[in-house]
């Protein structure tokens, strides 16, 4: 099988390109997606290839262009709306929650919203407290939405088409630190399942449950734990809503220990939700309390050493996992 060398960024671009070619109803809309080439250069070159009708630069009006995406979806299109960062998406929260997530149920099943919203999330780039947060857990709280977090090249390439085929609104969170991730993909890589979590590394001693930008750190932690004789399993959630309970619970039932690595703040977080589900469904399988590694509960600071201290790190994951397995963290 032939493969291509690519990056996370290029894989997403290729996914957008494929969608635009396959379905005339698809168009991309957002701030600086056209002439600028995308704030993170994801859509670079697409304006030339597909023209301004389908690669639409919008004014800085998140609520209007996200709402327009919803309206266009109601009108028979398959919009891909890009929001620069999750922090900016708060300006469109009204549209996402009160309309996109709500219309189908509120209308008694009459108006579904086949919309895809992509946005970057996460810290680690010294962008401080208004560009660096991981708020995907908030969106995962909302019934009516599907929330995805591609963490691999394969998912960056394959989740978009599956999302576009979904009849309901799908949010895709791209961790900004992943864009430069390089690797190979099969030349014919395409749509992937968006319902199941994946075991990225099998192991027997502890389940490290994570997603998105924390996956590389968690895999690194698992590798280093292996050197100490601790065999960690790494679960990549992939879908943050709905959560794939079956995969999580099967892993925890086998390892009997779980650490959730989530770049969101700990209080009321996705990590809290997963922890609760493990308690509810696998309590008697547990051989240690469920543990969480989350971001410090502070607005993300600018200074590098402070930012790194605020974010989950492989060292922390290792210390916590060791504590659960050997009791000496």
């Amino acid at each position: 099988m032939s493969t291509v060398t690519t990056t996370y960024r290029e894989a997403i671009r290729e996914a957008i390109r494929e969608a635009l070619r396959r379905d005339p109803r698809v168009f991309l809309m957002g701030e600086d997606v056209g002439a600028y080439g995308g704030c993170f250069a994801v859509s670079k070159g697409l304006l030339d290839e597909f023209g301004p009708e389908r690669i639409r630069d919008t004014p800085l009006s998140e609520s209007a262009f996200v709402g327009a995406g919803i309206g266009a979806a109601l009108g028979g299109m398959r919009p891909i709306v890009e929001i620069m960062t999750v922090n900016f998406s708060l300006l469109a929260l009204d549209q996402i929650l009160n309309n996109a997530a709500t219309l189908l149920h509120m209308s008694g099943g009459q108006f579904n919203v086949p919309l895809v919203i992509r946005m970057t999330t996460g810290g680690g780039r010294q962008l401080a407290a208004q560009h660096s947060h991981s708020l995907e857990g908030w969106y995962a709280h909302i019934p009516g939405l599907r929330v995805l977090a591609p963490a691999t090249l394969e998912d960056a390439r394959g989740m978009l088409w599956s999302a576009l085929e979904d009849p309901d609104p799908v949010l895709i969170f791209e961790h900004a630190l992943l864009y430069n991730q390089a690797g190979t993909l099969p030349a014919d890589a395409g749509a992937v399942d968006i319902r199941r979590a994946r075991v990225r590394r099998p192991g027997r001693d502890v389940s490290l449950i994570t997603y998105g930008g924390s996956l590389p750190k968690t895999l690194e932690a698992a590798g280093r734990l292996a050197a100490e004789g601790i065999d960690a399993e790494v679960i990549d959630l992939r879908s943050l809503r709905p959560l794939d309970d079956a995969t999580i619970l099967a892993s925890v039932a086998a390892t009997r220990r779980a650490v959730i690595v989530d770049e969101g703040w700990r209080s009321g977080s996705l990590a809290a939700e997963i922890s609760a589900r493990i308690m509810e469904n696998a309590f008697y399988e547990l051989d240690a309390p469920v543990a969480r590694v989350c971001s410090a509960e502070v607005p993300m600071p600018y200074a590098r050493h402070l930012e790194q201290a605020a974010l989950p790190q492989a060292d922390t994951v290792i210390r916590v996992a060791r504590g659960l397995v050997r009791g000496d963290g």
Partner: protein
Amino acid sequence: MPSLGSDMEAGTLLEWRIAPGDAVSRGDVVAVVDTFKGAIDVEIFETGVVEEILVPVGEKVPVGTPLARLRVEGEPAAAPVAAAPAAPVPAAAAVAPPAAVPAPGGRLRASPAARQRAAAAGIDLATLRGSGPQGALTLADVERAIAVRPAARAMAPAERLAGMRQAIAAAMLRSKREIPHYYLGTTLDMARALAWLEEENARRPVTGRLLAGVLLLKAVALALRQAPELNGHWLDGGFRPGSGIHVGTAIALRGGGLVAPALHAADAATPDQLMAELRQLVQRARAGSLRSSELADATITVTSLGEQGVDTVYGIIHPPQVALVGFGRIAERPWVVDGRVVARPLLQATLSADHRASDGHRGARFLALVESLLQEPETL
């Protein structure tokens, strides 16, 4: 010498696990004593320092005899404190093991998985040392304990049998002397329960199959939730409700005699869990390795003699319990359903109950409840 049941009068000290000067904590196993039911670990219910051993290994002493002298925490000087609790032994000896960090409130810190495994294997968690987070007991700790568990020490069979006969005689005599029994009986239609069982078992591997007796135990346990006056002990002239529903199951021993160890919290266990626990219990009862809590905790007894071909059981209550449920055999018999005589699998259930603790009206309601529960076997 602790009393591990109303039918125990004496025990032989087999082994000391402590020596003068040792610090002990509530829940530690300090000694092993042999009884007619097998070797049993003796837990201590105080925290302090051992001052003196009073009974040497090999000596048989009556229940209530001080075995050792303990200086309790905070006590300035020697004081006579015996490691001899009064019967019955409290439900669970829930304290931290020696080197483990005690949890707030003095509860045993053990993982859910460790607890479950220990319960199934008959391991007393209080005797183990924790290696998990904050000194908690983990599954691995329990597995290690199972692997190194010593074979049960035993008296000579004949000696044990004679002792057991004596004990049964004493207990039954006391029961008939003290307890004003009343007896109720009813016929249960087991058709639904058996049909459900057949369907369930068809789906299971041979080793995972359920027996009808497990459904009966579960039905009794659930019915007891609504009949608390049948579940507990008559002590010191009054009724004390059981701290949980711990169903003593009469198990006949090879070579004669019987014991009735408890299935703890049987009302909360699934039929599968009960089945597994029952298998374990029978195995261990016959191997003579029951735990003290299993012998002392039962809050009611169930006797099933159907396998022996008996139709009806008129049981004698095991003091200080206040009730005993008897089940005969399940046999096809004529039964009237919707005005027509049909063949149905029927079972005689009886209740022997202590009239001091309950009245016939309540007893009748309890039996009716057992019957209705068995008509919905899928909910058991």
